[in-house]
């Protein structure tokens, strides 16, 4: 099977990820000090927290908290940040993991307005500035579009957001491990990350970051923590990781992040850009194919296109059933960006790569697409 749906979940994973998961299951449960365990050996959670901070340009790893993925992280932030009754902005490129909590947690968020993007999925700093003419509490924006691969200029956008007195909340679900992320350099107030995409972790892992000094009301309360006799919390002693954590998953996520750091995110970005360029050039040479976001010089590891006469869903069905190539068809859980692309009806076919995608797989995909496009041409 050729997986060109890496933007959904990366597969295959580096061997070290599987080994870390297996090792975590094979070892006895880590000590909870009250049982007398502890002592030597690395702490899986603190180690992975540090790796995440290093990868994402975060100076204070103590403000990184584990979650089950981007949706969980977004819910924690949207419920916990001081947004109730206040206007919030979200970019047109946002994923449902952010849009749905923003638009449904009505007790926690005021009015939600959308910052428009262009036909490539780019959100300009000027568009952000214009939308901030009226005050807003926060701006939610993805670093990299999961539909077109557009990369937002977060340094410029962050500067504007802060000048206007709003918080900058960045979703790096699609870029972490694939593109350099500079949370502190961009002045990020809060950040959303998932583990199962470019970081090569298992599904069910992720995290969020809240900058020092910004109080977040916890999303959940429960077991674990510093003081078993304490029942009521105050903002001064909030804890954000209640309950038994997904340690095997966090161990595997840590291994995936280490793999990315060791490969070098800049190198990964360069390699993925080369693969996407090969895809783009190959697809644009085929009859009936329309590739989106052609106006971008650099993108993340995804590319969207359509083929005249066949819906993206049918094309994905043929690619899977006949060629054993997995891609993704439809709106990709980011419904609003399709208004800018003109693809609200049926969406696009998205091809996405990882650091482990081989050039030969891209060529096999292009060969399959050549056959399908030719068959379509015969029909028309």
């Amino acid at each position: 099977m050729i997986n060109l749906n890496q933007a959904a979940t990366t597969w295959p994973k580096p061997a070290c990820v599987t080994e870390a998961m297996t090792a975590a299951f094979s070892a006895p449960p880590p000590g909870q000090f009250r049982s007398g365990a502890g002592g030597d050996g690395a702490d899986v959670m603190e180690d992975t927290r540090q790796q995440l901070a290093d990868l994402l340009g975060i100076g204070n790893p103590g403000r990184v908290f584990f979650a089950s993925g981007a949706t969980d992280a977004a819910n924690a932030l949207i419920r916990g940040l001081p947004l109730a009754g206040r206007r919030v902005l979200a970019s047109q490129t946002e994923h449902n993991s952010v849009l749905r909590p923003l638009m449904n947690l009505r007790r926690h968020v005021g009015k939600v307005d959308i910052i428009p993007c262009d036909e490539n999925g780019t959100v300009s700093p000027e568009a952000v500035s214009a939308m901030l003419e009226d005050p807003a509490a926060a701006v939610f924006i993805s670093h990299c579009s999961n539909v077109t691969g557009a990369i937002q200029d977060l340094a410029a956008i962050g500067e504007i957001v802060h000048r206007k007195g709003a918080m900058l909340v960045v979703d790096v679900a699609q870029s972490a491990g694939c593109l350099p992320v500079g949370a502190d350099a961009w002045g990020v107030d809060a950040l959303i990350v998932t583990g199962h995409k470019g970081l090569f972790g298992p599904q069910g892992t992720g995290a969020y970051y809240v900058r020092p000094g910004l109080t977040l009301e916890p999303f959940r309360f429960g077991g674990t923590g510093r003081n078993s006799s304490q029942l009521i919390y105050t903002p001064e002693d909030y804890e954000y990781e209640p309950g038994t954590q997904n340690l095997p998953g966090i161990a595997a996520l840590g291994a995936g992040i280490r793999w990315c750091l060791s490969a070098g995110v800049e190198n990964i970005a360069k390699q993925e850009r080369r693969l996407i360029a090969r895809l783009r050039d190959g697809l644009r040479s085929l009859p009936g194919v329309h590739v989106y976001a052609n106006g971008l010089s650099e993108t993340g590891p995804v590319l969207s296109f359509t083929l005249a006469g066949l819906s993206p869903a049918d094309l994905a069905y043929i690619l899977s059933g006949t060629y054993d190539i997995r891609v993704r068809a439809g709106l990709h859980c980011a419904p609003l960006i399709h208004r800018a692309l003109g693809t609200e009806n049926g969406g696009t076919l998205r091809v996405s790569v990882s650091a482990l995608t081989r050039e030969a797989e891209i060529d096999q995909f292009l060969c399959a697409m050549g056959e399908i496009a030719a068959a379509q041409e015969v029909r028309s």
Partner: protein
Amino acid sequence: MSAFRIVEIIPSRERCAEAGWYAWDFILDTPVDEALILSLRPFGSLLYLKSLSRPFFKVESDVSLIKGLVGDNFFRLSAHDSRRDLVQEVERFLAAAPDTNGKQ
């Protein structure tokens, strides 16, 4: 039409669907062939890409969509919420199809 039986009808396992429709896979005891595809025309307009290495078909109406590949032992039915009864209708339709090999 080749004789075939519906072995099982399985609700789609897709957890991230697009249009809010419902979908089922019809598992057959015989691979999909052209006769079966043509027989499904009463359910909508037929798109049949014969020149593909494995021909693809789609029978589409406003409320339903049947698609599959020649040689697979299944095809997929999607239906609008208001027409979930189409599962039974397609099942009855296929059960009543002419049987040339003595199967029923």
